[in-house]
């Protein structure tokens, strides 16, 4: 299995504001299971989307089976024998398995002999070890079965290089076991499998070779037999950065936020938070590190009371707000900077002024009985716009006319203006330029200084390290461990992010 079947060289891919792939090399050997490992934002999915024709690289070369190729579409990639299975399944719920599998095949006749096709799909599924009823309707299948259909759909098109993007993220442990079994079988029958993942244990279990990416760049490509979980953990998260001296710790006070044994469901009905406990004190920033999709968004929403919990208690300054209305959290002094600025945090069509008073209009001096004093509202808005340097053409301009950085300043202005006791900041600097990022961090730091408790949820590990007094690592809805600023150990944090290591070191 030493002849490279795919070679990607110097792949460059830019998205607005980020370089997702920065001259990445990638090599696949026929018949191997190759794990592509990295944090979120490392560029794994981008690289594989380029190989499977969903994106086009800005620069770089790809050769398949020794021949240079130009992959322009997913159809191109399929013709070359390359197929990708995305995290989000792309199946039509009201169609049967067979109908979904044959959908889009180029050699379909005008009238379909669906019985013959069902028989063919049935034979094919048995022979590839992915047994499934070809007549079953998609909406009736479990997640594991859906994934099997996706794999079948790709294999049925004659693909022998199969890319799976985080395939185990949605599966039960039993289903993971089956998937690994099938993966092994495919590799033994000569197919090549790429496994995109961030879970270290899985990498060691399934991969022959491992390529690690970080920040859009190659870190290393290794044989499994020549590496260890610890080495991979460090490669994945990088070297330890010392805490930024620009943000020295402040005096931590009383406990403000107390989460006890929280359980909550996610949007797809899965268990997103699974017995999570955490506390944040006044005057400290607690950073939540973790690979995206391990319950971070749900954690923020649960505290802001936008998501209900099935177990556990939430207390803010001693007041129990478990499963109360969002207004109850607001009145308890909780501020929330959501990761989707527009859509949750800001009303895009409404003016800057109208957005700025969103948390203050109920009380004097802006609210007088059932009326709003718009003169005072305008004065207040002007004050905030100046204090937070929000660049806007006017107070009446719609919020969605502002740039990303200014929209975020607007959001921060509103969320920190009312002297909150607790600030939940979710991905506060995502998509912002350097100056805006710095401004956001300075605002959070100054809030800590005046005694607010800050829960910082960020996919940017550097940001977490720079700002946090304590770092908590979240994995599959649980806190794997908490480290103070003076004991930050990248190896341990990397291991915990990959689902390994200490479990209950709660400070």
């Amino acid at each position, binding site marked *: 299995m030493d002849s490279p079947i795919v070679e990607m060289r110097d792949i460059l891919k830019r*998205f607005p504001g*980020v370089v*997702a792939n920065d001259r990445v090399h990638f090599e696949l050997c026929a018949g191997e299971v190759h794990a592509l490992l990295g944090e979120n934002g490392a560029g794994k*999915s*981008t690289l594989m*989307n380029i190989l499977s024709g*969903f*994106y086009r690289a800005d620069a770089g070369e790809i050769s398949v089976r020794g021949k240079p190729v130009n992959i322009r579409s997913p159809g191109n990639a399929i013709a070359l024998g390359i197929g990708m299975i995305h995290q989000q399944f792309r199946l039509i719920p009201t169609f049967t398995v067979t109908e979904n599998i044959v959908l889009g095949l180029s050699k379909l006749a005008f009238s379909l002999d669906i019985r013959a096709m069902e028989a063919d799909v049935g034979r094919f599924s048995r022979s590839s070890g992915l047994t499934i009823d070809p007549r079953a309707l998609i909406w009736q299948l479990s997640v594991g079965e859906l994934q099997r259909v996706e794999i079948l759909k790709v294999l049925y098109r004659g693909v022998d290089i199969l890319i799976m993007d985080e395939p185990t993220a949605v599966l039960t442990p039993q289903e993971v076991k089956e998937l690994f079994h099938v993966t092994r079988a495919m590799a033994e029958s000569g197919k090549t499998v790429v496994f995109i993942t961030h879970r270290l244990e899985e990498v060691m279990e399934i991969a022959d070779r491992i390529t690690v990416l970080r920040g859009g760049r190659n870190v290393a490509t290794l044989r499994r037999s020549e590496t260890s979980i610890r080495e991979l953990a460090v490669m994945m998260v990088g070297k330890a950065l010392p805490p930024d001296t620009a943000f020295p710790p402040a005096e931590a006070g009383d406990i403000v936020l107390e989460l006890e044994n929280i359980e909550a469901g996610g949007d797809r009905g899965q268990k997103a938070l699974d017995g999570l406990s955490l506390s944040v004190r006044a005057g400290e920033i607690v950073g939540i590190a973790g690979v995206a999709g391990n319950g971070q968004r749900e954690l923020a929403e649960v505290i*802001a009371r*936008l998501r209900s919990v099935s177990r556990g208690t939430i207390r803010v300054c001693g007041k129990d707000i478990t499963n109360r*209305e*969002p*207004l109850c*959290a*607001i*009145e308890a002094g909780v501020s*929330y900077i*959501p990761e989707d600025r527009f*859509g*949750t*945090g*800001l*009303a*895009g*069509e*409404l003016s800057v002024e*109208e957005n700025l008073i*969103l*948390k203050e*209009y*109920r009380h004097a001096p802006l*609210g007088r009985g*059932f*009326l*709003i004093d*718009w003169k005072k509202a305008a004065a207040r808005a002007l004050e905030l716009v100046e204090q937070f340097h929000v660049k806007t053409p006017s107070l009446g301009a*719609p919020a*969605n*006319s502002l740039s990303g950085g200014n929209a975020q300043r607007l959001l921060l202005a509103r969320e920190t203006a009312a002297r909150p006791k607790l600030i939940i900041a979710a991905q506060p600097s995502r998509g912002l330029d350097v100056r805006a990022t710095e401004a956001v961090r300075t605002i959070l730091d100054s809030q800590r200084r005046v005694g607010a408790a800050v829960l910082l949820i960020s996919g940017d590990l550097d940001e977490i390290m720079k700002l946090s007094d304590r770092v908590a690592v979240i994995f599959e809805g649980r806190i794997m461990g908490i480290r103070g600023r003076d004991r930050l150990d990248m190896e341990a944090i990397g291991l915990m992010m990959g689902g390994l290591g200490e479990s209950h070191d709660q400070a």
Partner: protein
Amino acid sequence: MIRLEKRTSTSMAYQVFSPVFSILCAFAFGAVFLRVSGFDPVDVYVRMLTGAFGDLYGWAETLVKAIPIMLCALGVSVAFRMLLWNIGAEGQLYMGAFGASWVALSLPEAPAVILLPLMVAAGMAAGALWALVAAIPRAFLRVNEIITTLMLNYVAIYWVEYLIYGPFRDPSAYNFPLSVPFAGAARLPVIGDTRIHAGIFFAILAAALLVFVLGKTRWGYEMKVLGDSPEVGRYAGINVRLHIVVALCMSGALAGLAGMSEVSAIAGRLQHGLSPGYGYTAIIVACLARLNPWGIIIVSILFGGLLVGGYSAQFIGVPAAAVNMLQGAMLFFVLVAEFLGRYRLSLGGSAVEEVG
């Protein structure tokens, strides 16, 4: 490949002129049909114009038709602002008529100062309750309000039919499906010897009240936030469910008031065909006026004129359906103009990509 791009802004001029332009387009579109049917479109339109606005009688009749349209359109606009598509003004109007009639028929001896306020209250309450039937499932179970409000229209209309064929039927009406006529005290006063009635003041009062509520009150501000994004509203601690229920009930109450004023001032009894579809016309009017209360008052007069002008055109044989067609064409062109105001058509281009 034709592609749609979202515009970042819509110019003020576009917002003002697109409804005017849409109306002109609708008339041009209607002209083609009139021509094909063998009529001279210019002649028909001139007749309609003079019929509706040519003399005092025309103006009076136009306003008479405009009053229920105003009230219903103000009503639906309250719901539309929160992206609640209340298609049920027609049924809420009928229920309002029923509520008012029930009071009028139950208290035949009461003096006007007691009876009329009671009829107003009963009409608005009945309209609001009818909207509530759709509002509760919408707020708590996310049941589509378009379907429920539309279906409830038929229920309301048949309920009124049942009453006038059954319990409310006037025994002295030779088996005609009519209720007992109201006492004089149950009739809304009219202006001079026209048929223009006090309902016009209800409409103007309602418009003024809406302008105040939307612009100055917490409730109006919260509605505005929810109209932009229910998610943001929830995040800000606004009680979304309560707002849905209240807005739909307000909407129904105004349509109910239209029904009350129609039975009290125009018909003088509960009867068949109280509304030639005012509740549906109101939807078009609210859209054309961009939900602006004073705009609704003006556009309603235009649509009242369209109805009256349509009657005039029938004298030379133009079918009554022509007016419905013109109304429909107007809504169509308004929606197209609205769409083009938000999006820009462009040819060619690349596929959309996102960071993976």
